[in-house]
């Protein structure tokens, strides 16, 4: 049998990751299998300290003042066996003037009874940026429960971007809750893309509080469900400061017996602030499908093209 590290790398490449980055000395990385750190590399200006616990890993993550990490930091979390629990707690701080981009792959290729919990507390200073991308790769058994939680505070003149993607394999049970708070002149962009089928259950809550003047927020969701899958998307955007601007953009596509719900919550408490929202739930757009069919594509394939574009 392959050792855990090899199996993780194998699942990692299936998730779209490029294992070569783990050999690149300019790229910081951390690979965690269940509660074991099986690979890590640091670069100057970055603190990335994992501490193994009984059920997972506690991670201290810090980008020192003024340091801009050039290449994305690569993280890989996963459980290779059918069963197991993994609890990741992250305390992250991006100090004033610092910037970093993270690319996390979460792999559960054989999950029958797997729980993956992630709790992140993130503080972003002034004139800083933080981009967090999380890509999941699940097997087709659906036996995984994913519970990501994040609380983020963003300072002034800063930028927070999150991209969450779970479009390979069965979702299983998914319950995401991201809560963010943004100060003056800062920008928030949160996107989640999920594709559920079988009996998958999807619950997403993404909330942004634009409490600083001139802050900007965009919350975007793209969800497709088919078979018996169900999704509930709560996009919450609050603007309480002058010239704060926000937009919520949610598209959910359903096929078969699937069900989808979108709950946009928009709060504005300052007369100079403004938040807009658009939500579309329904079957795949007929005109899009027919346009592709008019180019010779069969209906089922046309639907596939439209849906995978939406989740890209």
């Amino acid at each position, binding site marked *: 049998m392959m050792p855990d590290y090899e199996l993780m790398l194998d699942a990692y490449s299936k998730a779209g990751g490029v294992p070569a980055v783990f050999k690149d000395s300019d790229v910081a990385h951390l690979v965690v299998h269940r509660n074991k750190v099986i690979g890590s590399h640091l670069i100057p200006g970055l603190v990335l300290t994992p501490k193994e616990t009984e059920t997972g890993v506690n991670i201290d993550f810090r980008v020192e003042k003024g340091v801009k990490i050039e290449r994305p930091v690569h993280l890989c979390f996963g459980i290779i066996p059918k069963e197991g629990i993994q609890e990741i707690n992250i305390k992250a701080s991006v100090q004033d003037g610092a910037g970093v981009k993270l690319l996390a792959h979460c792999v559960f290729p054989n999950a029958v009874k797997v729980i993956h919990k992630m709790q992140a507390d993130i503080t972003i200073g002034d004139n800083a940026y933080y981009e967090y991308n999380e890509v999941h790769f699940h097997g087709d058994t659906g036996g995984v429960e994913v519970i990501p939680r994040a609380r983020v505070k963003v300072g002034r003149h800063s930028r927070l971007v999150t991209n969450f993607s779970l479009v390979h394999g069965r979702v299983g049970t998914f319950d995401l809750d991201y809560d963010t708070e943004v100060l003056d002149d800062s920008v928030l962009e949160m996107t989640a893309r999920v594709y559920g089928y079988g009996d998958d259950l999807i619950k997403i809550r993404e909330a942004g509080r634009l409490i600083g003047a001139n802050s900007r927020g965009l919350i975007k969701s793209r969800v497709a469900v088919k078979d018996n899958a169900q999704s509930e998307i709560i996009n919450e955007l609050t603007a309480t400061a002058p010239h704060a601007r926000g937009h919520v953009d949610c598209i959910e596509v359903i096929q078969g017996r699937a069900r989808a719900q979108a709950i946009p919550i928009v709060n504005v408490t300052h007369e100079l602030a403004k938040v807009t929202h658009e939500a579309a739930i329904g079957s795949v757009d007929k005109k899009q499908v027919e346009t592709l*069919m008019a180019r010779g*594509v069969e209906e089922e394939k046309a639907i596939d093209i439209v849906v995978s574009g939406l989740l*890209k």
Partner: protein
Amino acid sequence: MELVRLEDISLNLEGRQILRGLGLSVKAGTIHSVLGSNAAGKSTLAYVLMGCAGYRPQSGRIRLEGDDITELPISKRSQRGITLAWQEPARFEGLTVKDYISVGMKEKDEGLIKESLHEVLLEPTEYMNRVVDKTLSGGERKRIELAAVFAMKPKLAILDEPDSGIDILALDNIVNLIKRLKKQGTSVVLITHREEVSEIADITSLMCSGCIVKEGKPKEVGKYFKEKCLPCPTKIYPSFMDGKIKVPAK
């Protein structure tokens, strides 16, 4: 040789009769314009010919090269060589111009994708990797639609108002593209409400109140349209005024 034939097509939508015993014959190797005012039923005719869902005529037959295709769904018709450029083309998230154009190509050939973009005066290096979504202007989207039709090399291209949303300066370019389509062996049903565009065709059918009411030389039909149809306050063909439908003799 006759490529496509619509025989006595009637279509009701939501209880309203939109097409009334419409007849049309398109010869292979021609540009055949369908000229008519707003709401004459031109786009509806395009959807019926393409086979869009909900546009199955209540009566009448559609033939392609003699074969009855009335029951065929869109994909089967397009696989047999018919395609449509929508009046308002759809937008797609996450689909690049390159992928969009190549969808209809039998062999994915990057050279042809580039050539088709050049045909509509879009610089390939700038556009190939753009996404066919909201970030494109209406005019750009229309051009990409025409490029996709060009790259597909269909037997019959139904172009629904290819000139709408395209500025006057670019009109020449669209006209040239339509002529190029003909040269490469594609027959064109050119739907328009502008007689100057209609005049580039080999033959023109005039549409009014869901019917082809006149057919002939583009210049003559265009002149009639300008003199009679444009000033007409009702946009209803005189012999339909009493509510009864009398299809004018051809």
